């Protein structure tokens, strides 16, 4: 296989706070190939945003500190770049859009100015040309109303603002777009439109997308491959079909069981028992063990590795280990 566009390997980002060390990201392996849409899922606080902000170099350091591993963009390690170099990459090679469209645009500058700024930062073009390109970028995301370039963010709805954010992120044709829960704050119908738009842009421009979400429905609709995170670690990754049909990690199975299903609407909705561990006091051994119905002695003391199950399917669980784990008790596959 060709060299991946983005290659995060054994990456660790800790926060050194007054109350202790928060191991927000503690060993994340993840790749995104050119043109691919990869989903990053997990419960709130598992480190999805910190992972994606690390790729942009936007984690405040301090309190954050890179404690190991690497993030490579087409082979080049980003973890120790200087500000100047970061500024050349951000918005140009990698762009990012965020969860809160209402507050993500600067209220005192016009839409046009904000897109033009992104363009002129990275390309030597005239203001006039940049304005024209900004208008085209907005058309691309489905905003063609006249005078939009001169409007201010408060004149637009949330869905429109997210479109503007996407136009701004895409205007320099980045190789990778990171979308951190881009639809969470939007109405359901608008959500679907935004997802459609992103998928279309991915197909038309070839920009790869790293899609962060806690919504498996979004993953099913959008992604080629999925990475599941739990408590700062990657616990399972596979292509979308495999993950939905043959989830191997007990956490992933729990996540899938908790998706509401139309044909079973009279059942009580399943939810994984227990709570996400306190990031300052991670459980020893497998971090999911306090909540896992299959937990064994070894799970409490030793940490399982991310095991290769073949066909690019990986899972971090003792159950898959023939020698140490008990293969017979490999949980039954849930089919959806």
């Amino acid at each position, binding site marked *: 296989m060709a060299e991946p566009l983005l290659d995060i390997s054994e990456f660790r980002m800790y926060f050194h706070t007054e109350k202790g060390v928060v191991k927000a990201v503690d060993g994340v392996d993840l790749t995104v190939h050119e043109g691919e849409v990869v989903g990053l899922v997990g419960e709130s606080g598992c480190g999805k945003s910190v992972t994606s902000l690390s790729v942009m170099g936007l984690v405040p350091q301090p309190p954050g500190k890179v404690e190991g591993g690497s993030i490579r963009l087409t082979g080049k390690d980003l973890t120790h770049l200087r500000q100047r170099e970061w500024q050349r990459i951000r918005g140009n090679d990698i762009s990012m859009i965020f969860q809160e469209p209402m507050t*993500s645009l600067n209220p005192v500058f016009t839409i046009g100015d904000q897109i033009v700024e*992104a363009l002129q930062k990275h390309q030597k073009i005239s203001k006039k040309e940049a304005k024209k390109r900004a208008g085209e970028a907005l058309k691309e995301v489905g905003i063609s109303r006249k005078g939009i370039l001169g409007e201010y963010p408060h004149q637009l709805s949330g869905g429109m603002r997210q479109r503007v954010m996407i136009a701004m992120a895409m205007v320099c044709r980045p190789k990778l777009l990171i979308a951190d829960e881009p639809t969470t704050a939007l109405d359901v119908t608008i959500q679907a439109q935004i997802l459609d738009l992103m998928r279309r842009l991915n197909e038309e421009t070839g920009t790869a997308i790293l899609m962060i979400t806690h919504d498996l429905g979004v993953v099913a609709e959008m992604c080629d491959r999925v990475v599941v995170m739990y408590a700062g670690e990657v616990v399972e990754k596979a292509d979308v079909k495999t993950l939905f049909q043959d989830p191997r990690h007990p956490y992933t199975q729990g996540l899938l069981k908790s998706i509401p299903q139309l044909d079973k609407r009279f059942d009580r909705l399943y939810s994984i028992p227990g709570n996400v561990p306190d990031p300052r006091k991670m459980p020893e051994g497998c971090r999911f063990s306090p909540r896992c119905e299959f937990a064994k002695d070894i799970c409490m003391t030793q940490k399982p590795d991310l095991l290769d199950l073949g066909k690019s399917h990986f899972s971090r669980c003792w159950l898959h280990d023939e020698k140490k784990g008990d293969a017979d008790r490999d949980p039954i596959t849930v089919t959806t």
Partner: protein
Amino acid sequence: MLIPVLIGMSVITFFIVHAIPGSPAKALLGERASPEALHQLEEKMGLNDPLYIQYFNYIKNLLQGDLGTSIQTGQPVSEEIIPYLAATFELALFAMVIAVFFGVNLGIFSAWRQNSSVDYLSMVIALIGVSMPVFWLGLMEQWIFAQELAWFPSSGRLDSRLFFEPVTHFYFLDALIQGDFVVLQDALKHMVLPAVALGTIPMAIIARMTRSSMLEVLRSDYIRTARAKGVGELLIIYKHALKNALIPIVTVFGLQMGLLLGGAILTETIFSWPGVGRYLYDAIHARDYAVVQSGILVVATIFVLINLIVDLLYAWIDPRIQYGKE
């Protein structure tokens, strides 16, 4: 808005001034003037008319642009006040520039390096600045920089030995127009101490406001968006963050400029600055009604104008504010 405020101001100043005990005729003629002479003069000045008649006469003249005549010099106040007004303006302008420039930058720097030793140091300076009375600072400056070190002159606007024919009465402007750099330099030397004394408190207050406002703005989502676009740190701070942070700073600025006018009067007294403060001070002693009334009215008008400018600034900074389009 402007008109009712000014009418109100004119009523208040008129009656306050007339409530000051003592008669202007007496002040003019001296304690030992004969009662007949006093009476004659009071009659001539209209001081024996009922108050409301005096007030209407005053307003009538005012509307014709006549601010009255000084009873001390016999000159029209509208002409006489100009050099004093220019002197005060020049002083206030320098103080304001000092306050805004250093205040905003100190605040930005503190916010940018939050909790660093530089941050603590500048906030301690700001705290000292806020708690220092103008007159005390002025006197300390005079003592250290004028008397002990003799770096700057201790009083006046210009060395009296310099020959200088003011046109606009803004000395800096005049000196520049006439290309007189000796005067320019001397005027600058005279300006430093009073302007610093007057500008320190507003500077400190603006610095603190800027810091807290910037800290909040720098945490906001759109700053993260700007960083994600690749915008450099300097532009992030001075373009993206500052324009947003300015909104509360402008409020403070407006309030401080009002106080600055008050402070100007104290500063003028300490540094023998020939401004409106001194003009009014002398007029009050002489019971020079016309001067006191008109002088206060002029200052009040300026105050109102400053507030108007502040409102316009808001609209310019924040597109969400639109006047008349509620």
